[in-house]
């Protein structure tokens, strides 16, 4: 199977993968932690571009916001607290891991020979359950974005688990960095007084736009690429931008630490609550077809989405909407809490908390 688009796709695939390898070697080679983090952010950008080539639009979206945005900021906050200098290099200690990596890599590449060709439409992974999802989702759920439908409805229970894991990570970071005696490290004594007028004006313009865009991504999630995970991180990035430009204290006045922690828990409650409502109405846990009792479902106008001829599954539509809101709340509050934990582990935070 070949053709102009397929060839272009394949060429881009190779080019971007080679870029990834080059960046990975740069990360391995560099001795400076800061350079490594910077290269990881470039790595995320390149891998998200590759994900677009491999048709994974939703994953590219997530990788873009998480890899390039959230994880870079969190890593920076961590090396700030760890005062991470360039690491020491002892060449003798690299021989054994290097040999191990080469041997394991050789074995894995040998084993990769048994895997299906790139783009094989008849491979086992692509022929059974994946195809069934593609064929049945629109009839079952009515959402064009199969990824969101599978994520939120078919595999809703699994996604609840992921949300709880994220919430648990939020608790973990808050416990380790958010409470108790603060860092013994003195805050940097001298802050240069650069004006940065341009930056502050642009940031003031951008923050509401980013937040608005997060809501668009959230509510557009079952129609196009997007969803609660992406929207949550984008929302958190808007708050992080505010903190970066206007200072953590101003941000903590707008989004207090307690609020962020409460919202993180609330998201899980919303998600699980939808499941419980489904049980009350006679279905299984997270079985959205039972989300509304028949009386309420009859009250929903048939042309709500502008297509009265199509038979809509309102329970599925609204169930996905509600649990995505839960995911949004948990993810955004978690990332914000983590940022507060890392960036605010100085004397400033404890004052803000005492006052709030």
């Amino acid at each position, binding site marked *: 199977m070949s053709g102009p688009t397929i060839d272009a796709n394949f060429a881009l695939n190779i080019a971007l993968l080679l870029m990834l390898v*080059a960046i990975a070697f740069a990360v391995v080679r560099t001795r400076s932690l800061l350079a490594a983090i910077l290269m990881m952010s470039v790595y995320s*950008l390149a891998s998200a571009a590759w994900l677009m080539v491999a048709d994974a639009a939703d994953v590219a979206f997530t990788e873009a916001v998480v890899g*390039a945005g959230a994880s870079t900021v969190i890593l920076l906050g961590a090396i700030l607290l760890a005062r991470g200098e360039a690491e020491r290099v002892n060449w003798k200690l690299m021989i054994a891991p290097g040999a191990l990596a080469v041997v394991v890599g050789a074995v894995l590449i040998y084993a990769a020979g048994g895997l299906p060709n790139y783009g094989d439409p008849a491979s086992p992974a692509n022929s059974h359950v994946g195809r069934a999802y593609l064929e049945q989702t629109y009839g079952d759920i009515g959402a064009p974005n199969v990824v969101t439908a599978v994520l939120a409805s078919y595999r809703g229970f699994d996604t609840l688990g992921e949300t709880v894991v994220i919430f648990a990570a939020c608790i973990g970071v808050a416990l380790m960095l958010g409470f108790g005696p603060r860092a013994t490290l003195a805050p*940097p004594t001298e802050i240069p007084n650069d004006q940065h007028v341009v930056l502050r004006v642009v940031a003031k313009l951008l923050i509401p736009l980013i937040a608005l865009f997060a809501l668009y*991504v959230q509510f*557009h999630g079952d129609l196009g690429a997007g969803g609660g995970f992406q929207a949550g991180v984008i929302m958190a990035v808007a708050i992080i931008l505010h903190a970066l430009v206007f200072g953590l204290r101003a941000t903590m006045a707008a989004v207090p630490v307690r609020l962020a922690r409460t919202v993180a828990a609330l998201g899980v409650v919303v998600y699980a609550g939808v499941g419980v409502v489904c049980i009350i109405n006679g279905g299984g846990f997270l079985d959205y077809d039972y989300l509304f009792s028949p009386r309420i479902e009859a009250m929903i106008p048939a042309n709500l989405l502008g297509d009265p001829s199509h038979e809509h599954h309102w329970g599925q539509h609204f169930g996905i909407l509600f649990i995505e809101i839960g995911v949004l709340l948990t993810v955004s509050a978690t990332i914000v809490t983590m940022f507060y934990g890392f960036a*605010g582990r100085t004397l400033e935070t404890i*004052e803000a908390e005492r006052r709030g």
Partner: protein
Amino acid sequence: MLVAAGVAGLVVAMSLMIVRAMIGPSHYDRILAANSFGTKTVLLIALMGFLFGRPDFLDIALVYALINFVTTIALMKFFRYRTLARPLGAMAREAGKDG
């Protein structure tokens, strides 16, 4: 055809940016390369939508344009001020007074 050539050109430009990010020499050069790489990625993703016939994925290019800025600001602030918590600009003085 021309779109494909444009994509190829962008890939070449991105590779050159990676080289600059690798050789440095200062961290500001690296941030600059990362930022410019990000802008080119935005354009690449937008163009890929047209090349592969699904131009409705511009949302991803949009989010890149936004996130890239935040990353650059975070890196810049980190290298220059060694903190993520303090405000930038004129407010720094006030924060210095009572903080």
